[in-house]
């Protein structure tokens, strides 16, 4: 730092306690809500929060809940989510949300208390090596040993969390640092940062990509969560690019909403439980444009048979994503929005007219795949099919300002298949880590950010019990989330895999002794509803939507329905199985070894 800058900085610096610095820095970073749980090692910060009108604190019932709430808040707003926890168990309890946010690239800042510096390493009460434990599940973390480093670290933490590929960070603050007095400096937007990810695409690579796209006769755009993370503009550029090129668009689970599901060029989600047409298009395409996705194993299926005849363009803000799982022909390190905008411009420059792109044959093929209706299921008059329940939920909430979260399992895949999104930031799900228990607290985080919206957690009865205690949080803070439980009494996806892969030996996957979810809701001071027949479903859903309180909706569905279509483990996209052709012997021994 030059002398000049130093004088300037000092002029703005004010003296505060460490705890006050934390509160002030959060406010200066634009934080309005944080999720947390107090404890011995964060009491000074809680003291500074007491009667602080600018920060709303949502009291979770478990630190894991606080972490997922911060994730839900972040994903639905595009802002950084913040959680505050104490040392030891407070920190270890939030490890799952950190790992979740790391895999799904969600920007959250977790502030943890730590034992006083002179006790670090002495196995003190509620001491754990928080930076050591969280090193592998954060983008970066800091142990702040001096109060004068605190403001700089917090500002850097926000920068790291939301720049480049977003992710979770942890700031571990010993209790004596919270009490000590030190200098606070506000953030300076133009201050030099050591972390400077590349955002602008290389124009030469963009030109190469556009040239390749012009040659394409069987193209597909495969977009991911990176497009949503790059902000609403990126989704607009994606729509513009699809429009001008006429290319079909598919997306990962994380990318749903970036491209409107109501658009004729939308193929649906791809991957293990994706659409028949999306997976076949991926397999048979000649040019693949991957934007902000990472060729995850749930997307690619058998890697050596993945889209064997295509040239691949991969746009990612994280250079390590390129050529990690799949070798590509053109790698472009860039922010998804900037790269899509540049691609649109490059395309416009060469294709001013609306000339024939030569894609008719490809679209005809896609329509044939569409006609297979891979998501078809056998309807039933007496039993609610889980797919039907989600179809009705979608139909009855379509006109609303709706946000959906999910837990993990069959219900999550059915939600992705049967609930449709036209806007980004409306779909919050645990994609990479697959965290059961994510959806309920995530919904609370979403509702805190969007108080007037309809926020629904599409849940399974097994997942939702992992974080059920957060209903108490929803009740306390008047956050009227709707938990729509597809209750089939089984850990449905586990049961499905045991049926398909383990000789129908249903080892410990039946949820015996389930609670009465209606009474449970009432015990929390919330509202419980139950639907048992297709005939009563619509009425009950409307009752749920109109309810001003948090709701647990016990939707009793068919018990042994399987989630199809499915790319069996170890198979390629074009070896997908359908519900109506399912035999039971599709997965070989090698496939069984895969997760």
């Amino acid at each position, binding site marked *: 730092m030059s002398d000049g800058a130093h004088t300037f900085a000092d002029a703005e610096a004010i003296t505060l306690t460490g705890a006050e610095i934390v509160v002030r820095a959060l406010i200066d970073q634009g934080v309005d809500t944080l999720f947390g749980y107090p404890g011995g090692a964060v009491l000074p910060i809680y003291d500074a929060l007491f009667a602080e009108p600018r920060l709303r604190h949502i009291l979770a019932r478990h630190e894991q809940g606080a972490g997922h709430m911060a994730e839900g808040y972040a994903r639905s707003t595009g802002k950084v989510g913040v959680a505050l926890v104490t040392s030891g168990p407070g920190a270890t309890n939030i490890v799952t949300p950190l790992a979740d946010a790391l895999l799904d690239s969600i920007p959250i800042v977790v502030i943890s208390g730590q034992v006083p510096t002179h006790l670090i390493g002495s196995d003190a009460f509620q001491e754990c090596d928080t*930076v*050591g434990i969280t*090193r*592998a599940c954060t*983008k*970066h*973390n800091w*142990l702040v040993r001096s109060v004068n480093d605190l403001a700089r670290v917090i500002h850097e933490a926000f920068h*790291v969390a939301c720049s480049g590929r977003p992710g979770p960070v942890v700031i571990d603050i010993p209790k004596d640092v919270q009490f000590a007095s030190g200098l606070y400096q506000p953030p300076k937007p133009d201050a030099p940062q*050591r*972390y400077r990810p590349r955002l602008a695409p290389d124009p030469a690579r963009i030109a190469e990509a556009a040239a390749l796209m012009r040659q394409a006769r069987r193209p597909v755009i495969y977009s991911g969560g990176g497009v949503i993370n790059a902000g609403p503009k990126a989704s607009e550029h994606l729509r513009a690019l699809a429009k001008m090129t006429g290319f079909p668009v598919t997306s990962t689970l994380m990318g749903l909403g970036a491209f409107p599901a109501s658009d004729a060029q939308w193929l649906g989600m791809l991957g293990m439980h994706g659409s028949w047409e999306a997976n076949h298009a991926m397999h048979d395409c000649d040019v693949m444009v991957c934007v902000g996705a990472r060729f995850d*194993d749930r997307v690619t299926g058998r*890697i*050596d048979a993945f889209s064997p005849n295509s040239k691949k363009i991969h746009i990612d803000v*994280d*250079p*390590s994503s*390129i*050529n*990690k*799982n*799949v*070798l590509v022909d053109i790698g472009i390190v860039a922010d998804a929005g900037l790269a899509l905008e540049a691609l649109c411009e490059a395309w416009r420059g060469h294709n001013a007219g609306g000339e024939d792109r030569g894609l008719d044959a490809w679209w005809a093929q896609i329509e044939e795949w569409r006609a297979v209706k891979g998501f078809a299921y056998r309807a039933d008059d007496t039993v609610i099919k889980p797919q039907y329940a989600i179809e009705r939920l979608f139909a009855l909430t379509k006109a609303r300002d709706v946000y959906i979260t999910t837990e993990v399992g069959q219900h999550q895949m059915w939600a992705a298949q049967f609930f449709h999104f036209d806007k980004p930031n409306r779909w919050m799900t645990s994609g990479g880590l697959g965290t059961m228990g994510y959806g309920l607290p995530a919904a609370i985080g979403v509702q805190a950010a969007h108080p007037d919206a309809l926020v629904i957690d599409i849940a399974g009865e097994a997942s939702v019990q992992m974080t059920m205690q957060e209903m108490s949080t929803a009740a306390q803070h008047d956050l009227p989330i709707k938990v729509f439980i597809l209750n089939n009494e089984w850990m449905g996806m586990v049961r499905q895999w045991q049926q398909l892969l383990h000789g129908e030996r249903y080892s410990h996957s039946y949820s015996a002794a389930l609670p009465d979810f209606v009474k449970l809701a009432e015990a929390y001071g919330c509202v419980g509803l139950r639907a048992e027949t297709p005939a009563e479903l619509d009425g009950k859903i409307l009752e749920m939507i109109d309810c001003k309180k948090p709701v647990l909706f016990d939707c009793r569905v068919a018990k042994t329905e399987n989630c199809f279509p499915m790319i069996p483990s170890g198979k390629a996209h074009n070896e997908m199985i359908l519900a109506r052709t399912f035999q039971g012997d599709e997965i070989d021994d090698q496939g069984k070894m895969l997760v």
Partner: protein
Amino acid sequence: MPPRTDDPSESRTLAVLVDNEPGVLARVVGLFSARGYNIESLTVAETDSAQHASRITIVTSGQPVILDQIKAQLERIVSVRRVIDVTRDPAGVERELALIKVRGAGANRIEALRLSEIFRAKVIDTTLESFIFELTGPSSKINSFIELMRPLGLVEVSRTGVLSIHRGAETA
């Protein structure tokens, strides 16, 4: 699962320039263990205390696509300022220092001393029945010397791991 290619595995030396802050070595080493990469040798020391800079030199091995992935993963770490691929730098110099203890008498002892002169090793300690040699050079030279000492009474070896720098007046 990494991309499958038929390329053979090769050895690569990476110089990782990092901010000298607590935990930085753990971040780098943790990356290698978490993702299943090899570390053949690793050295680390502060190189500029005013700039809080340290230099970690890592010798690793793998297929070229994996080596590129390792470099990209290292560059992702917030505390990493720069990663230099020393092996691919035509002006890269690599050196290692070894301390080698040899015990023997008579002809073997004389032969060990004679070979040490050929390798330009320094004798830094001696008793009537042993030598400690200090040897500097590329790892391959140290390996050769160790193999020659083995039948002559090799007792113990201590090596620094590889260090590297760029030839000429500039940095790499």
